[in-house]
């Protein structure tokens, strides 16, 4: 087996072409799984005996909510690594993740609202789960605007990292909110321990959609990361001169 020097890819110059090569391997399976998940969700999964057809919102609502939370933790980890080790690529990754994480959090709030109206009779209620998820969205927005507001990139990354790390405390609060407080929001659909309470096709559709969302997230985060690399490193030597490896320049010329 060929030995791979992983440190090599911590450099934006080396990571750029690598990221370009692996994006299709995430984007294409994501599209296939979205179609498969929706097929199972709408044509295989049975009607819910309590909620009728309205429950079918779950196939996007739950994956979006999970993505919003998990991407936040991932963003905080990358921001922390970037800050602690002065790793540029890591900070860029955190910036790239923040947009997709915010998108998924917003999506979970919008779909939740569309689900709340027919089942609870209201678009919004200030219960613990909904409120803490709204705070998650504000944390993302805070991170994004903080980075945009500070001109000095290093300081922007540092400030963002502090905000991201402090905000991590909100993620377990969201997760356990349905147990800790009396909420209108229903309890966890899937628990790490114990049997799921859903019919197998419903569960399958949800997990296929979750996998699709993950693949989608990796693809868009990498595409954005490439944009960020070029924008931030455009004055660095490697981006001005052709480098030995298949460089971004050769790639740009081909397209």
């Amino acid at each position, binding site marked *: 087996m060929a030995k791979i020097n992983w440190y090599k890819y911590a450099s934006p110059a080396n990571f750029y072409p690598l990221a370009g090569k692996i994006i299709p391997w995430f984007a294409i399976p994501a599209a296939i799984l979205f179609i498969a998940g*929706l097929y199972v969700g*709408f044509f295989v999964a049975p*009607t819910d005996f309590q909620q*009728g*057809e*309205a429950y*079918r*919102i779950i196939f*996007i*609502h739950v994956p*979006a909510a999970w993505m919003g939370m998990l991407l936040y933790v991932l963003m905080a980890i990358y921001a922390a690594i970037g800050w602690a080790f002065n790793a540029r690529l890591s900070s860029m990754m955190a910036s790239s993740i923040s*947009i*997709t994480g915010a*998108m998924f959090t*917003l*999506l979970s709030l*919008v*779909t939740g609202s*569309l*689900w709340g*109206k*027919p089942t609870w009779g209201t678009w919004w209620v200030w219960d613990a789960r909904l409120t803490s998820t709204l705070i998650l969205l504000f944390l993302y927005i805070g991170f994004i605007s903080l980075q945009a507001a500070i001109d000095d990139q290093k300081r922007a990354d540092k400030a963002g990292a502090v905000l991201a790390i402090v905000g991590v405390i909100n993620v377990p609060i969201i997760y356990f909110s349905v147990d800790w407080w009396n909420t209108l929001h229903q309890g966890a659909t899937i628990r790490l321990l114990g049997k799921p309470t859903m019919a197998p096709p419903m569960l399958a559709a949800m997990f296929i959609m979750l996998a699709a969302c993950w693949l*989608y997230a990796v693809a*868009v985060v990498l*595409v*954005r990361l490439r*944009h960020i690399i*070029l*924008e931030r490193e455009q004055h660095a030597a490697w981006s*001005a001169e*052709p480098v030995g490896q298949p460089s971004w*320049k*050769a790639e*740009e*010329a081909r*397209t």
Partner: protein
Amino acid sequence: MNWSEFFSMGGYAFYVWGSYLATLILMGGEVLMLLRRGKKRHQELRDVPERQGKN
């Protein structure tokens, strides 16, 4: 199951299809923004004089 029954979603059409429309708008919007960002970058690279005529 016929199609009109399918699209009516047992009376929840607005909520169910609204959710998936929101998904399409948000995810599609994200992809579109990234594509536009890429296009802009191409243009900027072309417009930088020092990079012209090289490579």
